[in-house]
């Protein structure tokens, strides 16, 4: 019988069982690394570095996990915080993000270019960080709006707005 997330968490809390935690890492490494790859604009090395920090922090803070929520939502929250901290530390990267967070500011990718169809990945990279995080969490990782708001530490209304705006932009850029 496959143990549930709650059972694995309980085993780690009780006896510090690294194998139980390893099973949790195996289960969630793909969504966490996938999310962070989207947030770092496909920088796999940086995303994996952040993902590793995310799981280490989860290991340290497992006592603060509340079982009423999903373990994945809690993990995405830690991953988002790790990403934010990395952005703050790397001011140059932040500047680069702020310069290119909106595709409409780039003439080559503006809606006027006839026949241009963007790849989904490219289009996602064009969203603002807040829009991208909300769209990726809800549309790719299956979080509810409430769970995304919890993970992103943002008001529910803001998350809904970011998803709506993000999807509108994606439809326009992908010519759907």
């Amino acid at each position: 019988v496959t143990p549930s997330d709650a059972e694995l968490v309980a085993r780690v809390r009780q006896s510090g069982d690294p194998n139980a935690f390893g099973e949790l890492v195996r289960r969630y490494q793909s969504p966490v690394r996938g999310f962070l790859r989207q947030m770092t604009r496909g920088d796999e090395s940086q995303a994996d570095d952040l993902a590793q920090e995310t799981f280490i922090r989860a290991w340290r803070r497992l006592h603060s996990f509340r079982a009423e929520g999903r373990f994945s939502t809690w993990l995405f929250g830690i991953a988002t915080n790790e990403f934010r901290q990395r952005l703050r530390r790397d001011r140059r990267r932040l500047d680069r993000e702020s310069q290119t967070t909106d595709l409409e500011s780039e003439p080559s990718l503006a809606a006027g270019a006839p026949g241009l169809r963007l790849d989904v990945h490219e289009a996602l990279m064009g969203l603002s960080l807040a829009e991208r995080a909300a769209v990726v969490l809800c549309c790719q990782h299956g979080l509810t709006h409430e769970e995304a708001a919890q993970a992103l530490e943002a008001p529910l209304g803001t998350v809904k707005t970011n998803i709506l705006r993000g999807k509108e932009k994606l439809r326009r850029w992908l010519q759907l």
Partner: protein
Amino acid sequence: MNEKPDFPEARDLLELLLADAHGPVPDAGFTARVIVALPPRGTLLGLRPVLFAAAWLGGAVIVALHSHELLGVTADVLSQAGRGNSAMLLACVPVAVGLGSLVWGLISLACEEH
């Protein structure tokens, strides 16, 4: 304004594209690297806030009980320092170290909690 109407078909297609663009990330040794990098889960780590609070309370009680003597010593130290008595200044080093440890403990606790 969006030029295209918000057809359900378009919404479905977008969600399909988004879901399709998100493939599983192969583990490729990631889990093993995380497990190797995990710090030991010391039992004292979880008790740190309790130990810290108890030590702080203990210190506060001692200071409250001996406040008059401590004020006298401080006054002596300041007056001796004015005369260039380095021995008295050296006696303050443990106090400074203690205060430094207290500040460091508070900062590290705050960082850990975040």
